[in-house]
């Protein structure tokens, strides 16, 4: 899989946070709603706390992939961070469920997985390899919201 991504687009490394903290400019903007679907409870909790240090992000966590669509319908995220290897239902199936849903089908998805070693785009989806730093992940998110 990592080989397939070798030719993909490699996102720029960010030298600092893509978005500053608590600047008045940012807080006035509409918040970006991020849904994290990952069965690793510790990780999702910490990532939520980290992202929410920046007031630009409102984060919702779902540790049960089967409930991803239900939670998403309720939360209506602007972007989804989706693990690939999960028990029961894997990331690919969750993505298919989103695509099949009238409301959710256009929501961008970032796959965050230990299966790839490099960041890239495959079949129109962004893949980010674990482990990833917060700055890099924020960079990948902001890619979808830059003007």
């Amino acid at each position, binding site marked *: 899989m*990592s*080989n397939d991504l*070798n030719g993909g687009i490699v996102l720029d490394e960010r030298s600092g946070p893509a978005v500053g*903290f608590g600047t008045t400019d940012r807080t006035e903007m509409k918040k970006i709603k991020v849904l994290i679907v990952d069965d*690793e409870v*510790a*990780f999702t909790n*910490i*990532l939520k*706390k*980290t992202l929410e*240090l920046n007031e630009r992000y409102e984060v919702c966590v779902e540790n049960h992939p089967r409930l991803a669509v239900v939670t998403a319908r309720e939360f209506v995220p602007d972007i989804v961070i989706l693990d690939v*290897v999960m028990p029961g239902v894997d990331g690919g199936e969750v993505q298919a469920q989103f695509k099949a849903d009238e409301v959710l089908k256009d929501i961008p998805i970032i796959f965050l997985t*230990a*299966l790839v*070693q490099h960041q890239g785009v495959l079949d129109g989806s962004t893949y980010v*390899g*674990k*482990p*990833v*730093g*917060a*700055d890099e992940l924020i960079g990948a998110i902001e890619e979808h919201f830059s003007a």
Partner: protein
Amino acid sequence: MALTATAPVKVLIVEDNAMDASLLQVTLNRAHSDPAEFVSTGTLGEARGLLERERFDIVLLDLSLPDSQGLDTFSRLQIHAPETPIILLTGQDDEALGLEAVRAGAQEYVVKGTLNGKILWRVISYAIERNSLRRSLRENEQRYKLLLGAVTDYLYNAKVEEGRVVSTAHGYACVKVTGYLSREFDRDPNLWYRMVHEEDRPLVLHQAEQILAGQARPLEHRLIHKDGSIRWVRHTPVLRMDEMHRVIGYDGLISDITERKQAEEALQNAVADLLQSQEALKTAHLHLMQAEKMEAVGRMAAGIAHEVKNPLQILLTSLDYFSRRLSSEQDKDFDEVLNEMRKAGQRADAIINGLLDFTHTETLDLKTQDINGLIQSALAMVRHNLSFNHVVLQTELATGLPPVALDGLKIEQLFINLFNNAIDAMPHGGALTVKSRIEQLTQTHRDQGSRQPGRFYAGDTVAIVEVEDSGGGIPPEALHKVFEPFFTTKITGKGTGLGLAIAKRTVDLHGGLIEIGNRPQGGAICRLMFNIQK
């Protein structure tokens, strides 16, 4: 003998004078009671035709024919019947011609007009008998020659007086085996030794000494035939002693065993070929086992990578969380500690990635590539690293390098790794030298410490890339381990120990060769070799 046989004697009369011919026939018939068969012809042409079609016991030939004259008539007819005796009929005035013909091979001549039937029959019967004797003699001679030709052994004997060979005699077949006649050995007392193959002379000398000391053992050795060819012989000496047990002479049997030796050699070659293919099979088997092992390790590495990367992710995100929460406190120590922790996590991740790269059963995306182009783009990637470490770049790239089938991405990454390795080896600055050239090999190259046969043979045309640094070089005891996974001479935390292992795998996949050594003037050199497609 022909006359006592019951079969009639068949006589061919070649005579253009019909009167003479019938007179001859009548005379002969009258003088002889046994049946005889006569055929007459007046021309040489017809006589030749008859001799080709039928067998005659005797030919009576007049030398003066309408289509041929003189001695010519005899020789032209004889060619057509070399086995048939010919008696010439001459006129009274050319007896000399008859004599000449006898010298040329005719059985006899008789002068026409003086013929007495009984005498003529006697002449005929003698001619036939002589001819038959001559034929059997010739046959015997031929049989004898054939027999001699088949003999590949000869005997010789040597007479010894007071511990010295004083005379030798060689059997006839000696000329067949050695090319020399017995008398040539008599004339040249050192010939027996000089004709021995140079490499075998010590053995032959030793055998000669042993013989004179009373110990005769057979010896197989080579000798150079007079025609220059090499012959193998087996020399079996048998001693002759007097009653005091002193050697007074010896007989020797020299057998030509060249054919046997050639057969033995062919057999040995066949066995060697067999062993070689067996070895190749064993190597192939080892490679297969190695490939299977790599695949298993690869699967395991992928599993471990996934399981380790998830907890690493938790640690890294936690660190990011802390650094974001605490950096506002402006505590430099905290920042430093967090940074070290982050670097440790990244290092662990780099090792896992290296392991994945190393074990990945990779396929190559081969395209014809310009090696110098790949070197240049790799150099562009390390330019910052070069200037940061005060390393001067020197390039000696050959122009007109032919394109080589390579996986561009992998080879470029390989160059980047080698350049970074070289830069890492010069913490206080130095010079990085990158060379490329095309070379025709004068010797076969093998992988260092590899059981595999060499990939590059003398005569091959190869593209060579050399990466040299002016650093401290590689400790000699470490040289043979540089390609082993997880072997590194870099300080802990600086390298994953997989860079060169991956480099080696990449080059192996390309069927190329990578060597690492130290330069005489200091620093290390890494040489890459790729085959150029013909």
